[in-house]
């Protein structure tokens, strides 16, 4: 590998952007495809699929057999609400290799005793969220039920293009939330990105089951293309 290629690769990874190295293992020829260039690449379809699955591997292409080294930033899970559902959702996210952060300004909820081993920030979203580098490899979940906390956090998540945004609440609650966010200037297309009622419909009843439904929906959104995910 050429040193300048390696340098570009490491810079992209440090900036939390997906990148693929395409290597012809016979000739040693190598090139790098940045996330932003995947759509226009001759190998667009296979690159897109590989990045989605975060899976390196050999591929037969029109140009011969190549090895694709896929580098995808590790996903993070950001939750507002140090609530009962979060007590399962946070460790579940950790088990699935997400870096998990919980934000809740209510100090009675946001305690280390309730969330052992989890990064809990007892601050308002406007203080807590900007340093977290919320990005397209972030799943964002709003669980406080309190518009003062959830609304600004949702606005932040929408502006950062998170791959998943979900908000707890019934259809009625969510309807009111949409009206509030719309009044703040959010477009209908952006509002349609919020998953609510939250989670896959698995008949979840208990807080832990709701956490499983949410994590299932996040996984679906991470791994399956939008149109296919909607059919599921």
């Amino acid at each position: 590998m050429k040193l300048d290629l390696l340098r570009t690769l490491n810079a992209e990874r440090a900036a939390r952007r997906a990148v693929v190295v395409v290597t012809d293992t016979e000739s040693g020829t190598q090139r790098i495809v940045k996330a932003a260039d995947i759509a226009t690449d001759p190998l667009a379809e296979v690159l897109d699929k590989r990045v989605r699955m975060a899976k390196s591997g050999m591929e037969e292409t029109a140009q011969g057999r190549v090895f694709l080294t896929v580098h995808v930033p590790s996903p993070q899970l950001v939750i507002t609400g140090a609530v009962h559902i979060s007590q399962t959702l946070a460790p579940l996210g950790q088990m699935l290799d997400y870096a998990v952060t919980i934000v809740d300004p209510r100090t009675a909820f946001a305690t280390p005793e309730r969330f052992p081993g989890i990064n809990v920030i007892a601050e308002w979203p406007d203080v807590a969220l900007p340093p977290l580098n919320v990005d397209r490899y972030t799943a964002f979940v709003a669980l406080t039920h309190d518009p003062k906390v959830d609304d600004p956090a949702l606005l932040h998540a929408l502006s950062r293009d998170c791959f998943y945004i979900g908000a707890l609440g019934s259809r009625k609650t969510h309807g009111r939330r949409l009206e509030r966010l719309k009044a703040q200037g959010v477009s209908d297309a952006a509002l349609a990105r919020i998953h609510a009622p939250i989670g896959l419909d698995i008949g979840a009843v208990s807080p832990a089951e709701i956490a499983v439904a949410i994590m299932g929906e996040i996984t679906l959104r991470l791994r399956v293309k939008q149109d296919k995910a909607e059919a599921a």
Partner: protein
Amino acid sequence: MLGRDKDILKAAEDWSKEGRGVALATVVETWGSAPRPVGSNLVIDSAGNFLGSVSGGCVEGAVVTEAIDVIDSGKPKTLEFGVADETAWKVGLSCGGTIRVYVEKVS
């Protein structure tokens, strides 16, 4: 990708910038039960120092030896290890799997 892999590629860049001869080994294919997934990296310098892993420690020694050749010649190589391989008597995978490792010079 494992978090550790990130440090390995950074090490490859840093070692190379220090002027050391460096090779990068990558698991490109696996069959059967393999200890490390496709995409796993091992970085090697010309003195035989290495970081990372391409197996659970079964074949690293052999990869390091080959990598030093690759650093000298500059030509990439694909190595194969497995129980079916005759070198299995010396180096092989006790788990019974087969792996193919691509070794290239960083230059």
